[in-house]
């Protein structure tokens, strides 16, 4: 255990009675005494506070915002140059084959790009940016700040008690707020399908900010267990599971993140790794697709469950990439990569679970309606 890293909120997790598990090299809370099910439901009904400090926070800086954005556009097939000041956007790095090597959030913070990447990929992402970008663009990992997420319908009211400007932000806005005297870099976004915020604060103030939020009667601490079931119901990808370096944006159902300006015939078309493959696939048939899946019975189908077109066929048509029980849905939910011929919504497939073929239906995601403040 001693080689596990700790976030600035580690002591607070222990005080709160968290069950800690290793995750991406960190000792992280998987649940608190409330339990995964109640934590999930609480987040959907009020507000949950998550420690996501294990994620990578990176500042990419050039002489201007535009310089940094142009650099990043050589690695990421997203309109970063056209991203408005104090606005945020989803994106991903691609490799030479057009596979996704990580997904991330990008923010235009006036004179730099603020990037948040997955914990398990952050070292590789930072090395990739440093080696690929011109030397006049600096890539700095922010190691002295914690990252909190406050998610749920009560998040706005809660955060506004500390800084009323939180209420002025729309979905995917970013702002610098003052939380009890602490400078916080805040975005109105998250990973639960609920309204909410991600909040970057200096490590030495993180526990005080977290405690101030937890002092609100509507806020409970939420662990990684519920974070996973919340994002799964919201239809959001988990990197390394639903998408990886072999999955292209088209296969992953993520071409919505590639703005027109970066597509074929766009003003800044291509120019990122694997562009020919990524752009060539848009609008054309691909071999497999990421889809939502609803097991018909009560048994959860988890990652790795093999899917067949019939109860007896020998040839798999796909596989569950993540799955479990959806507390808000009240039943099992999953997503998987499926041969395109079998990926139409409403198609019945069969997952092999403990030697039995059990029916599962291709379904529209999200499984629970998104609740963003547009």
């Amino acid at each position: 255990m001693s080689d596990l890293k700790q976030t600035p909120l580690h002591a607070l997790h222990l005080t709160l009675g968290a069950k800690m598990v290793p995750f991406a090299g960190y000792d992280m809370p998987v649940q608190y005494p409330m339990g995964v099910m109640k934590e999930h439901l609480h987040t959907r009904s009020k507000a949950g506070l998550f420690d996501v400090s294990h994620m990578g926070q990176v500042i990419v800086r050039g002489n201007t915002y535009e310089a940094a954005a142009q650099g990043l556009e050589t690695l990421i097939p997203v309109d970063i140059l056209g991203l408005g000041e104090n606005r945020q956007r989803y994106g991903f790095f691609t490799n030479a084959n057009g596979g996704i090597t990580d997904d991330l959030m990008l923010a235009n913070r006036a004179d730099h790009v603020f990037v948040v990447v997955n914990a398990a990929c952050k070292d590789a992402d930072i090395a990739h940016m440093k080696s690929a970008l011109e030397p006049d663009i600096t890539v700095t990992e922010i190691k002295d700040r914690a990252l909190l997420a406050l998610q749920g319908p009560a998040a706005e009211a809660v955060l506004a008690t500390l800084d009323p400007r939180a209420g002025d932000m729309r979905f995917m806005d970013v702002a610098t707020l003052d939380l009890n005297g602490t400078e916080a870099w805040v975005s109105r976004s998250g990973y639960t399908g609920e309204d909410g915020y991600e909040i970057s604060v200096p490590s030495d103030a993180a526990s005080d900010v977290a405690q101030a939020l937890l002092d609100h009667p509507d806020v409970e601490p939420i662990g990684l267990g519920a974070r996973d079931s919340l994002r799964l119901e919201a239809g959001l990808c988990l990197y390394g599971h639903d998408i990886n370096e072999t999955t292209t944006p088209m296969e992953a159902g993520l071409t919505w993140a590639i703005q027109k300006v970066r597509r074929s015939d766009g003003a800044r078309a291509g120019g990122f790794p694997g562009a020919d493959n990524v752009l060539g696939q848009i609008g054309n048939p691909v071999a497999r697709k990421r889809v939502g899946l609803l097991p018909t019975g009560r048994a959860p189908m988890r990652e790795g469950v093999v899917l067949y077109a019939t109860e007896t066929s020998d040839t798999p048509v796909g596989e569950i990439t993540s799955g479990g029980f959806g507390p808000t849905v009240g039943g099992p939910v999953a997503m998987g990569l499926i041969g395109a011929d079998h990926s139409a919504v409403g198609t019945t497939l069969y997952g092999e679970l403990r030697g039995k073929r059990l029916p599962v239906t291709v379904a529209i995601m999200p499984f629970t309606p998104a609740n963003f403040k547009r």
Partner: protein
Amino acid sequence: MKYTEEHEWLRAEGDAYVVGITEHATTQLGDLVFVELPEVGATVSADDEIVVIESVKAASDIMAPVDGEITEVNTDLADDPSLANSDPLGKGWFFKIKPSDASQLDGLLDEAAYNALIG
């Protein structure tokens, strides 16, 4: 009450035993979301995996504590697996088993031994 090292409890009821899992087990497992029970009338052997349970976190098995015949299963639990969390020693029971060799019960743990096991 008797216990197994697999965190099951057994309570005598006539010539059969009601079997469930302990509060320690449900706390470790987290919220149960799925339970698949054996067939009534099935003949089972000790350590056969006869119940599948899934919590929010993972799947696991419950084994037959002794050789015997399944005489009843808790269909309410299959409909609402959370009963095992809310009332593990009562409404959250799993099945009833009629041992074919009552002497196997002697090999199980008593409450003191079980409490020592879970520390």
